[in-house]
């Protein structure tokens, strides 16, 4: 049932139990998944607004684009690998392949951690070259967007640690499966955001 049909109901006429309250798509999702979706909506707004301000500021005459450290390409590959590994873990969880799930999960977390280290190296390189946050707005924005993204990924790693401990403790499989799935969705989201941000950084 679409949300519009639900809103057309005439509650003053109908009496008695109405059983299809979960008719709306959003309502039949697992609770945690809906919670994650709501959070992704919030995070999308955060990143969109950052990009809008970036685009606005970019137009000013004093904007001096900075050279993107080459390590960013490597980082992008790492993040893609991380996302793929988690997707693999998700599929393995659905199929009940415990070993592959563990391996995929570890790999995904490891690549994500490596990505964060790589981002930090990129920062170091820029600072060594004298591209401080306060020398040019382009630099400030570079640090801002990469830091915002990294903080989101760090939050994801907290969820990842919790999922890993669930796997280790041997928690019921459907719950592990849901946790892994949520991690994978969040990773794909952050990968998408990163690719968009990276394209933006490259072309400006």
């Amino acid at each position: 049932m679409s949300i519009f049909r639900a809103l057309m109901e005439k509650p003053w006429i109908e009496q008695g139990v109405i059983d299809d309250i979960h008719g709306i798509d959003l309502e039949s999702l697992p609770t945690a998944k809906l919670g994650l979706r709501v959070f992704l909506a919030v995070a999308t707004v955060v990143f969109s607004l950052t990009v809008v301000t970036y685009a606005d500021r970019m137009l000013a005459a004093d904007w001096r684009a900075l050279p993107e450290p080459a390590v960013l390409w490597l980082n992008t590959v790492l993040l893609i690998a991380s996302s793929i590994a988690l997707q693999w873990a998700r599929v393995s969880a659905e199929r009940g392949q415990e070993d592959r799930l563990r391996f995929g999960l570890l790999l995904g977390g490891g690549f994500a951690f490596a990505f964060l280290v790589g981002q930090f190296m990129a920062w170091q390189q820029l600072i060594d070259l004298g591209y401080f946050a306060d020398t040019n707005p382009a630099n400030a924005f570079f640090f801002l967007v990469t830091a915002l993204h990294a903080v989101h990924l760090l939050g994801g790693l907290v969820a990842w640690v919790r999922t890993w401990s669930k796997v280790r403790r041997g928690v019921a499989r459907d719950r592990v499966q849901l946790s892994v799935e949520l991690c994978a969705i969040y990773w794909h989201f952050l990968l998408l955001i990163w690719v968009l941000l990276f394209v933006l950084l490259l072309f400006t």
Partner: protein
Amino acid sequence: MTSITPAQAELVPPAEVEDVELYDPKSWVTKYVFSQDAKVIAIQYSFTAIGVGLVALVLSSLMRLQLGFPDFFTIIDPEDYYQFITMHGMIMVIYLLTALFLGGFGNYLIPLMVGARDMVFPYVNMLSYWIYLLAVLVLLASWFVPGGPTGAGWTLYPPQAILAGTPGAEGGIVMMLVSLALFIIGFTMGGLNYVTTVLQARTRGMTLMRMPLTVWGIFTATVLALLAFPALFVGAVMMTLDSLLGTSFFMPSIVEFGEQLEYGGGSPILFQHLFWFFGHPEVYIVALPAFGIVSDLISVHARRHIFGYRMMVWAIVGIGALSFVVWAHHMYVSGMNPWFGFFFATTTLIIAVPTALKVYNWTLTLWKGNIRLTVPMLFALAFIVTFVNGGITGLFLGNVVIDVPLSDTMFVVAHFHMVMGVAPLMVVFGGIYHWFPLITGKMFNVTLGKIHFWITFLGAYMIFLPLHYLGFLGVPRRYFEMGETSFIPDSAQTLNAFVTVVTVIVGVAQLIFLYNMARSALKGKASERNPWQATTLEWQTEDFPPGHGNFGNKLPVVYRWAYAYGVPGHDADFVPQNEPPIGTPAESGGESVPGGAAQPAE
């Protein structure tokens, strides 16, 4: 062990809410301090919000003392005054009203009204409160950093907010921004809960369109807040960097005390856009819960179904959507393109349509109702009058040509205090009086309640009606003291002094409210189970006041909407939502086997 295929794992049985693993407090600390029970969290939110609100109330009295008697209170210097103004505004709008409506009323009422045992993520809900408390503490701590709290005005406009000369530029502004960021993080945690609970944890038979309007208001306001607060978050992060790291997100090339600063190229207007992209929805984040609650109060205390329920829901949703496209009407004097202003003036006037519709529907609900002038009803009626008052001045200010001369005068102050200060507070008081028996099991002292109402209601008009007039005279807002002008008569000062006296009286009168609440909660006489004879689920719980898990062994089953008042064929003039229709046996409740409707095939 059976394997669960993804397709089945996705399906929740249609009629039922899955039984939640109810969190079970083991000790006093987990029951009352680090509690995961939404009802306890609601009380914690409310106490904290009202506590910090009292600080803001005292600040407003101090400001009024300065304005009314500028030569008498020499201990208040201009820096203090700006700090009072800033903290008063920010506390009232965010730390009091937003937190109280969503964290307080939302936490208490959403699970009870939709027939759920608790919020869906109780642990996250608990974190939400503690981060909110931390945000409040950081905010209050800014009084103890060098230079004191920020005095940049509640809008925190750069560049002045972080430059020397503005009080609190040393550390107060950073404390404010950090506190706001914390608040937003905490709120997001709560907001995830409110939205998900409303969408997924409703009991059997509680369709979206059977929800009380209170839930609709809080739900929509939460969605707005989740989408609007990120703008403030981004703005706060950027301004913190400008202040601490010397970046130039918002800072143009500027001279401070004759010295050229390193800043350059930033756009202060960008901050204004970010701020008001949050700031205008914020008005409705406060107003929509008030709309919802007041609809229920009016319906219950006028013993009449709400007029035009569907339109009320659509109006709430419509206002919520429109509130995102009006923000720049706060910026007509920022030098924007007139066409841009014209666009925003148009959207601003359009938003009056659903809003007026709601006012008509409240009035039509009262029409031929059996009005009981209880204390909550008095506050509800006061809300309608006040909201119309403040709303209509909003229509004036929404037009560019009228706004430009009135901008930054007391007229604007009067307008927004009426529409989003006094009006929502009337609902806050009405709501607290209305649900006080439910929360405490005691009845408040009605006489004291009425005294509190009349002083607050009449006092608010004696304070803010004159401010409209002062605004017309050209008295500017944010001025520490009016020097000699050629256009403001001396009599304006007499009016100012009058306003100050009333402010202090109304401020002190709030002690009556606090006394009444405290005394009644401790020693009041026990309330009946459903003293207002309301239909909604929160009054139909097994325990009174509702205990752990809200409802007894079985979740209630809902058979009708929340406004079955004066239904023919019933003895009482109201039918609770969970009472089966005449001649039908009661359906099995939530906890037992999922109802007879289609189950996914095994």
